[in-house]
């Protein structure tokens, strides 16, 4: 009997390499798009920053400082060079603050919100999904769980967020109304409501995916064969049904990172969290072009990387995909 070929050599690895190449080209495309989008804006960025009263001399000076008087190709090249290291120059509004600084400040908060809400969605959604699939009085439970899901669906995350603030912060005073804390404990209490609000969007999706996967798994012949062999239903649940139900979640989350980030932007606005989203829309309001560039690129890159990671994880975890030989 030969030794099984390692994961790295097989067709799965080639698949992965192809996906990495695709991701890189998408990131390149994104950079190009963002660059040209910013250059397409009518009007002069320098003038916008300095205001209408600015003298032509001042405008020209700022132009030169920002490098906006160079030929387009030169601008593009220096922009592109800056992308891998995330150096996008300085903020146009705050003196001397580099865009990278702003990005990293905000990234932590946003990442935390997104991660926390994902985790919350899983913790709530997976058991509910399993319950809906396997409950004895299946119809009733399944119906009610999914009706709740439909209702949750109809409300955009920020609506849920606002209502949550109203209910829990104002009326009950359990959580702070907004802002961010100092230190871990305070951070968590500031994180709670935003994470819940954002998870409102993901939970129904998780429930549905898990329920469908669990139902499919329980209908498999090998599950029935296991029952016939006398294996306990609990053992079947944990060893056969549960893993199969979790697998599609990887893909689900990967695909929804983009929307989660979008939702996070709004949630940050509502809860006044100092994250990337806040930075972005404030920059848009102030026409702070360099910051807009940086945030847009970071957001897009995050999505691409998340998708890639989901794909890679899936390949690693599912033995069937691995052994496509």
């Amino acid at each position, binding site marked *: 009997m030969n030794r099984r070929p390692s994961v790295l050599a097989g067709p799965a690895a080639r698949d992965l390499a192809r996906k990495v190449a695709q991701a890189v080209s*998408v990131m390149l*495309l*994104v950079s190009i798009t*963002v660059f040209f*989008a*910013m250059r*397409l*804006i*009518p009007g002069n960025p320098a003038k916008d920053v300095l205001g209408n009263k600015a003298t032509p001399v001042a405008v020209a000076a700022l132009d030169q400082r920002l490098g906006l008087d160079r030929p387009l190709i030169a601008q593009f090249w220096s922009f592109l060079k800056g992308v891998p290291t995330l150096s996008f120059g300085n903020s146009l509004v705050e003196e001397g603050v580099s865009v990278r600084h702003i990005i990293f400040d905000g990234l932590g908060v946003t990442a935390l919100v997104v991660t926390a809400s994902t985790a919350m969605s899983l913790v709530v959604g997976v058991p509910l999904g399993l319950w809906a699939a396997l409950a004895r009085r299946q119809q009733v439970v399944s*119906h009610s769980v*999914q*009706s709740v*899901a*439909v*209702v949750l*669906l*109809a*409300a*955009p*995350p*920020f*609506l849920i967020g*606002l*209502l949550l*603030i*109203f209910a829990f912060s*104002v009326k009950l005073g359990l959580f702070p*109304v907004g802002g961010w804390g100092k230190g871990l404990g305070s951070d968590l209490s500031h994180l709670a409501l935003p994470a819940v609000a954002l998870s409102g*969007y993901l939970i129904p*999706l998780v429930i*549905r*995916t898990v329920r*469908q996967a669990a139902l499919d798994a329980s209908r498999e012949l090998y599950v029935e064969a296991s029952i016939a062999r006398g294996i306990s239903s609990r053992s079947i649940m944990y060893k056969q049904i549960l893993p199969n139900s979790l697998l*599609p979640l990887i*893909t*689900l989350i990967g*695909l*929804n*990172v*983009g*929307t989660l*980030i*979008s*939702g996070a*932007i*709004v949630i940050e*606005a*509502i809860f006044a969290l100092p994250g990337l989203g806040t930075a*972005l*829309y404030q920059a*848009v*309001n102030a*026409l702070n072009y360099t910051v*807009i560039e940086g*945030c*847009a690129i970071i*957001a*897009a890159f995050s*999505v691409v990387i998340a*998708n890639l990671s989901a794909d890679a994880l899936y390949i690693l975890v599912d033995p069937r995909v691995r052994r496509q030989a």
Partner: protein
Amino acid sequence: MMAQGGPLEPAVAPLMEAAPIAVSAGRNRVAWLVSHRFSRRWGASRAILFGGGGLAAMCLLCIAVPLLWAYKPDAMSALALQGPSSAHPFGTDELGRDVMARAFDAGRLDISVALFVVAVSSIVGTAIGSGVALTAQRWIDPVVMRLVDALIAFPYLVILLLLVTVIGPGRHLGFLPSGLPAILISFVCLDWTFYSRLARGQAMSLRDREYVLAARLAGFSNTRILVRHIIPIVFRQILAYAVLDAIVTMGALASFSFLGVGVQPPTAEWGNMMFDAQSYISTAPWMLIGPAVLLAVTGLSLSVLADGLLAKGAGDRR
């Protein structure tokens, strides 16, 4: 003599039933959630009735209330921050305006923008998607679809913010309220991609049907086949998703206005109103409840309507 056309309602390939999560990316979350719950209990037709009825009722109210109610949406008064009363069922806001009248007025804007965006995007997207599926030039398909994929993969708010920035958030155009043109253009520019993907799939499953081949042999140009045969059928299938998209679009519009990059105050818009309401949330919570309830109810009606349309579509296919 060539056989006349195909069956009246050709069964179209199931709209990506088998792998729901594989298709949805970014904002299509809504599409895969509607799980026929309403329609399974009470039937697809009732779902369409309820959903459509709810929507129609809401539209009616949004037109009627601002016109007929004793208090006009923009009428400021000295009775600021009053709670709900018989005169002002939703209370008044910080400028003394009647929240109910304002909320319905805002509804007019929100719903019509959402429907407009969805209508335009769906038509454009369907046309492009079907066209791509049927074109003889092989190179068009991958190019367009790569572009579409790239756009879809983005966090859509980020792209929209970018687009809005490019167009200029403060602009107004003629009778359109300030900020609206930027929103309309950006939303449509992004939204069509969603439909083009769906339409392409549908059209591809249709293009190998006999009656299409027959039409081609008979010398009909591609465009004519497209317009007369393929697009109407594809569109029917896509209708359900258009309704779902309307919910998402409404939410996005409200979010944008909330963030300050959408419709600018003092125009009445649900997002705007909720933003204002935030500052008074402890003293005048009704400012929030009014628009929130209307938004949720509209969303729910649309959701039920889409549910029914989806179930109906599935039923037809059998």
